[in-house]
């Protein structure tokens, strides 16, 4: 028996009820959050913006790359 479709579509209630009734989704969201947290830590610790860490302005960045490429 199909459930009746509400006459007015509401994004908020769709998300609220959807998240509440999740089963597999809970595991997946946990995986996604853990993964994104690890990625954020790795990004902050090991992946600085190489050029921004050495140069402040676009001109300085251009000059730095110029000197590297034309070495």
């Amino acid at each position, binding site marked *: 028996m199909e459930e009746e479709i509400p006459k007015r579509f509401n994004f908020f209630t769709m998300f609220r009820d959807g998240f509440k009734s999740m089963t597999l989704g809970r595991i997946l969201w946990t995986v996604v959050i853990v993964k994104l947290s690890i990625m954020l830590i790795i990004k902050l610790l090991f992946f600085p913006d190489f050029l921004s860490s050495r140069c402040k302005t676009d001109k300085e960045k*251009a000059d730095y790359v110029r000197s*590297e490429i034309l070495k």
Partner: protein
Amino acid sequence: MELLNSPLLDWSRAQFALTAMYHWLFVPLTLGLGLIMSIMETIYVKTGDEKWKKTAKFWMNLFGVNFAIGVATGLILEFEFGTNWSNYSWLVGDIFGAPLAIEGVLAFFMEATFISIMFFGWVRVSKKMHLASTWLTVTGATLSALWILVANSWMQYPTGTEFNPDTFRVEMNDFWAVALSPFAIAKFFHTVLSSWVLGAAFVCGISGWYLAKKRNVVFAKQSFKVGSVVGLVAILLTVFSGDFSAYMAAQKQPMKLAAMEGLYQGHKGEGLIVMALPNPAKKSYNDGVDPFIFKLEIPKALAALGYHDFDAFVPGITDIIKGGYIQENGEVALSFAEKQARGKIAREALLAYQTAVKDGKKADVEKYKTQLQNNYKYFGYSYFNSPEDTIPRIPEVYWSFHIMIYIGGYLILFFLLATFYSFKDKLDGKKWFLSLSVWTIPLVYICSESGWMVTELGRQPWAIQDILPLKAAVSALSSYAVMITFFLFLILFTALLIAEIRIMLNQIKKGPEAE
């Protein structure tokens, strides 16, 4: 460039390859499974048969697992661009900025919006609205792939752009030339179609497992039918799009085509190798040693594949280095020495341009800028001392290409049989074929990854074809720092992959009745 040692380049490349290959485990399944579950839901909406709804929902769950584990893995590639490949990132920021921004804003948000309706909206929106959301989720994912592939294609065939010596950036002057370059079109169709093949093989493999276990027979048979038809159509179209990709490689990256076939000395009407035993004694392009101990080939097939002409001249590695042959566009191919000379003129013009700008000599500024623009096409050759430096590693490219071809050939036969058996309802007694369908899943992944290996290993040593070699693109980092992050990613990716496989196997064991 002598400061840039080889370990740094090797670790940076290894890290990028690891991340890209890991990312590519998820993308094709998202595209392929997305299409198949959309077809299944369409059948449900058309027929009103609840069995199809159940079937579509089961595959949607597996799509969700794959999507969740795979989402954002591509972001790591962007971290690597900014840290490990900063020279390259600066140089191409203007080109990559536009396609990646479109990808982020349009495709990703489109995908993210409709995926929530797809999972949460079954009892919230009408059948047709839900179906539209499912198709739009898949369309969004495919559009994401389009813009990434446009960016990648530009690296293989830089067009629609101009180098600005003041900002030291390559700037886009023709968006449509970049977005609709024949390379981008060929790559988009070949990649998306091959992803459909992967999704179809995945569906047939898992359905085959259910049938072998005599579980959920009706569900498995209807899934097998959809999977086999999608697979058959997609693999045939993949072959055609692959032919176009080979044609583009022959026109713009002849070294890649020569490496794919281990072709050192070109001839008219060159054949395509079906089976061969490469000669380990072959060490250099000009050592006179035969590259194969034994080879079996289809006569004239490489000429037909690369030039759509059975009698066309297919240049080998030696020919490309020596130049002098007539290309399809009627121009005489330049030798390595000529390209190197032009590259050096471009480099000297760039240095002279800077001095002229500093000294305010307007006439010289214009003169050197023109000189630079006329020779910029070969700028990258100024980095190399020997023609050997411009040859990709042949065994890797050769084997990646041939593994892709062998598995691709197998997949045609597999989907022909799969379609025949499923539509004739003869799958029940075919235990060997059901086992084969399960084993086809790892094979199709190997095929898909091999395809990317051909594309990326075949264009070595270039980051941007003929303009920027990898050794000039890499950041001056410590190789140990890159090595550490390589192993960190290896651990993270392995853990995530184990998690995905476990969650997916768990869902498969539960079956569609778990819905």
